[in-house]
């Protein structure tokens, strides 16, 4: 491992950059959400602190830092303290495999760190470096595995608080996230098959002509909905449904620990938007992006911003789903749809005839299933009339 330290240093610098972007993004995301939601609801939103209210996040941060930190008496202290950390870390590391620009020349100045065998020197040099922390051949799997870890924070927070509301929130979230992970995992199979790779860089490169959202409209929709559920975002914000659960899993949290949860939620939003943009919207690709790497980054951030705006829009215009409907949507709609999408995509990649046959067969199955469903409902309607007419509780 001759080039061990240079790699470590390069990775460290990039990591710091990502974390900086995410942390800043988080702060202004909260502000943006409040302002945009206010606009959509014909209110003003926070506009007092600083010009146009731009310093509002700072004020919030100061407020949260000085709040009293409470730990409930019956709480499992270690896990209670650990839960926010476990929540934030996956949110921060999930973007490690996402490229945010093309390979770019980086101008460096040679430096020496004593004891590490790197020669001193003031020479400037240029290295070619991909804009992105890492390009691994299992990039998409990495994202899925980190996403699957994310559920622990919420579950543990709910359990360790020794509070029924928090517990219910934790249990709901574990059920919800595990359920939607299936549809999520299947929806990314489309881009994998199209790019013939799980590397995020390869996936972006495969979209140099057409964005995958064109080939994979259903996959993109499923991915977007499933990630909303994964990050517990409205209209799927069951774990913290205020009207039912006070504040769900973070009911007992206050001060900085609370703000860590808050931070994780917004960073996850940014993260999944970035992944969505990479998988379906061509990543950093856009006119002239390859010639001007910074332009690529700008495109990438613009796509993320568009996705984030859509999330805010959804939140301020849609009510929360009822819990059983949420599970029904995940298991009975998104999962079969994602499966069908995989089959159709695979068939289309082989040849057109097979594609036509598969689509025909799926349509036939769908029609038969619907007809059978309707027939059964009618057949068994008599005995169940009383149940069906009772108002939903």
């Amino acid at each position, binding site marked *: 491992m001759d080039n061990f330290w240079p790699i470590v240093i390069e990775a460290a610098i990039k990591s710091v950059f990502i974390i900086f972007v995410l942390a800043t993004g988080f702060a202004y995301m909260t502000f943006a959400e409040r302002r945009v939601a206010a606009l959509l609801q014909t209110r003003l939103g926070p506009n007092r602190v600083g010009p146009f209210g731009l310093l509002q996040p700072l004020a919030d941060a100061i407020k949260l830092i000085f709040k009293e930190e409470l730990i409930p008496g019956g709480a499992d202290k270690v896990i209670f303290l650990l839960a926010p950390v476990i929540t934030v870390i996956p949110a921060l590391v999930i973007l490690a495999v996402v490229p945010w620009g093309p390979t770019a020349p980086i101008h460096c100045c040679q430096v020496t760190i004593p004891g590490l065998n790197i020669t001193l020197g003031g020479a400037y040099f240029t290295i070619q470096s991909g804009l992105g922390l890492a390009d691994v051949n299992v990039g998409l799997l990495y994202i899925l595995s980190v996403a699957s870890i994310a559920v622990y924070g919420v579950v543990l927070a709910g359990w360790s608080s020794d509070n029924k509301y928090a517990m219910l929130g934790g249990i709901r979230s574990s059920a919800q996230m595990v359920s939607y992970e299936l549809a999520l995992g299947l929806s990314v199979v489309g881009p994998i098959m199209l790019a013939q790779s799980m590397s995020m860089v390869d996936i972006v490169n495969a979209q140099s002509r057409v964005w995958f959202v064109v080939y994979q409209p259903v996959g993109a929709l499923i991915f977007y909905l499933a990630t909303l559920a994964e990050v517990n975002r409205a209209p799927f914000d069951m774990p913290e449904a205020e009207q039912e659960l006070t504040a769900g899993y973070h009911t007992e949290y206050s001060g900085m620990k609370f703000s860590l949860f808050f931070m994780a939620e917004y960073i996850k939003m940014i993260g999944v938007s970035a992944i969505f943009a990479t998988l379906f919207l061509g990543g950093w690709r856009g006119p002239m992006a390859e010639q001007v790497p910074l332009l690529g980054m700008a495109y990438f951030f613009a796509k993320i911003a568009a996705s984030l705006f859509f999330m805010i829009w959804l939140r301020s215009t849609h009510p929360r789903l009822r819990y059983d409907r949420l599970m029904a949507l995940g298991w009975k709609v998104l999962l079969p749809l994602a499966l069908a999408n995989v089959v159709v995509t695979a068939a289309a990649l082989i040849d057109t005839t097979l594609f036509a046959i598969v689509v025909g067969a799926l349509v036939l199955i769908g029609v038969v299933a619907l007809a*059978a469903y309707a*027939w*059964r409902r009618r*057949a*068994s309607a008599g005995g169940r009339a009383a149940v069906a007419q009772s108002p939903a509780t």
Partner: protein
Amino acid sequence: MTPTDFNAILPILVLAGYGCVLLLVDLLVPEHRKRITAWLALLGLAAAALGHVAWPAGGRLVAFGGMLVADGYALFFNLLFLGSAALTVLLAFNYLPRTGLERGEFYVLLLFTVLGMMLMGQAADLIVVFLALELLSIPLYILSGLARSRPSSEEAALKYFLLGAFSSAFLVYGIALVYGATGSTNLELVLAAANGGNPRLALLLAGVGLVLVGLGFKVAAVPFHMWTPDVYDGAPSVVTAFMSVGAKAGGFAALLRIFVVAFPDLAGQWGFVAAVIAALTMILGNFAAIAQSNIKRMLAYSSIAHAGYILMGLAAASAAGASLREFAVGAALFYLAAYTVTNLGAWAVVMAVERADSGTASTGLNLSDYAGLGWRRPGLALAMALFMLSLTGVPPTIGFVGKFYVFRAALDAGYLWLALIGVLTSLASAYYYLRIVIIMYMQEGQPVTVSRPALNFAVAVTALATFLFGILPGPLMSAATNAVMGFAR
């Protein structure tokens, strides 16, 4: 998938596809007309049996890179499994609605467990053996717990599941050690690697031993039999009936193939172990059965005992010389077929006498409930007497012929003591088998029985087979002999 692959797997493929479709079609079958599903399941079994026409007569297909074979041995077992499953469907026909357990999933799970059994017979790779074993077992775990309203059924499912998972772990560990010693899981390659002195003999022997333990659980051989009485007793009778023949035959299908095909060079080591296990199984099964007053528990111990007799065939298959080995395996196959027919018939009678309405005090499962059966239902009692005689091994029944061949195989292989134990335990078993005959004919009683066409048909078929093959064992024996032609090399 090459054409060879396709032909070799066609029966299994048919069954798998049919099972999936049946699962969906069952959703459309109204709750009170699940008999339609039963008929459809029978149709599926028949279709799978028809699938065997893709196999070359007397030939041998090797498919999926040697993971699956289609030979006479597999054909014999496949038809055995399909036949016993068809009989089980006939038994379930009345039994399930009567006991309020009728669910379409029963038939679907039955198809899948048959699929696992067929794979056990066809598998020529330890990985496939493991998957087949799981595919065989998991539906049976579920079916054992079908009568969830009874705590004993739930207990049976849990016990069977836990101990089954435990035994699977043994099997996997054994497979891993065999792989470590030989570098392959394919039976032929394992044979090649084990041939002529393996440098990692200790590792290989440990692996072989663990495989024997894992499959020994499935066939309920002593000392891995503990689960059997409770599970057989707690599970719904129709499930027990199928489990006692299907799971056992499935276990033996893999056991015989693995040990005879892959480990003939270690026969000196495993032959004696198999003989000891066979002896223990026969002794414990038969003597414990004597003490039972519940017919289900009695038949459970009886099934343990019969595992011992079949294991005697395995022990005999450790003999030197391919023809002796083939004879021993053929004898085991014949015994399995004999046991399957007889035991299914016996369970059919048990179901005819069993009282389904849980409200009554008597369950119809005690031996005393059979008092007077000989006068009230002469046909049923005659069949039961025939089954009991066959299980004992009295001529002119199929059970006698089976025992005869197995004992002869043991003698040929030089296991005189084992054959002696077999004869003595058979004598002991007469005590509890004939007790039922005595109760049926010599004691006064008013047995309450069920008489339905499907049930009566199943009893008649099995009784006829038990009797006819007892007089004319030739066709079945030649089928078993042909099945193992060229099996041991």
